């Protein structure tokens, strides 16, 4: 009787082990898929974006500032040429700010577009 119980326990243990190893194998497989998927990404783009967060942060801030500066400069120029002083500056400063935000979102890859970032390139029409 005790023999039978022992056998039953052993069987149960074996099925448990089999299930565990099967699960481990599945996990390994899916991990392997994820890894290969990651490593097949463009290494150049990875290097550009991930090598230093410092560079990326600087890039984003300079994009925003550039948009605002260009908008303000263009508005000021239009004011001088057309003599409609403060309106050109006001409107183009706001538009420049919008352009700066657009630049930042494109660089960060949030918005697809004339991609400044590799990963979003070619998604303009999608």
């Amino acid at each position, binding site marked *: 009787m005790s023999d039978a119980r022992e056998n039953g326990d052993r069987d149960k243990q074996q099925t448990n082990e089999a299930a565990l190893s099967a699960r481990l194998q599945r996990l390994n497989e899916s991990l392997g898929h994820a890894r290969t998927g990651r490593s097949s990404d463009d290494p150049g783009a990875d290097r*550009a974006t991930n090598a230093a967060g410092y560079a990326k942060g600087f890039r984003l801030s300079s994009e925003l500032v550039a948009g605002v500066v260009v908008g303000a400069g263009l508005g000021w120029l239009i004011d001088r040429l057309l003599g409609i002083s403060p309106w050109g500056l006001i409107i183009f400063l706001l*538009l420049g700010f919008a*352009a700066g935000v*657009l630049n930042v979102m494109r660089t960060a890859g949030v918005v697809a577009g004339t991609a400044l970032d590799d990963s979003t390139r070619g998604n303009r029409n999608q």
Partner: protein
Amino acid sequence: MQVDPIHQFQINNLIPLATMGGHQFNFTNSALMMFIIVGLISTLLIGATMPRAVVPGRLQAIAEISYEFVANTVKSSAGTEGMKFFPFVFTLFMFVLFANLIGLIPYSFTVTSQLIVTASLALLVFVIVVGYGFWRNGLHFLNLFVPKGVPKAILPAIVIIEVLSFLSRPVSHSVRLFANMLAGHITLQVFAGFIIMLAGAGILGVFGAVLPFIMVVLLTALELLVAFLQAYVFAILTCIYLNDAIHPGH
């Protein structure tokens, strides 16, 4: 003892060349540095490729690695069609890289820490992108400013924003490189100045000076990374802008 962190960026006139319309044209230390950079790159690359060995030596390996590195960058961001701009991108990359690296040598002059130099390079890229875009695509190049699937009502505002975004490219392109170099070199100089000031403050100061010294060593390593990274970013952005000229509305 005071250290002036801005002094390193001073332009000195070496040889007066001409006076035109009340403006003086001089051969400056900045111009000298650029000649040195171009000479160094030419000597290195021409000298390295002279042996034309199948199994490259050290110098030839450097030349081949830099060639392949830039070629891969161009291909991955501007496509194979972008390879006709490879000489341009390679020249830009090597010039910026060498200017950044040589600038790290004490008592040398960093060409890329002058806004006028980086702005000229960025404007050159901008003019080539606009010129080639119109030459290759005609007026279709303007599709770049008209995103698809935008409601008619807000299209004018979107087009203006897109144009502004396009015009802001040379600004951010040049300011990024310039500001990185300027900020990095000023930081280095300030921390180096701390060493001298502390060391002059007596025996306790000498021990205190170890801290900024460690900082300077670490910052130099960081600057080396930044020098390479900014040259790479400059090149890859050039490629991405060129890609717009090759495939607008894409």
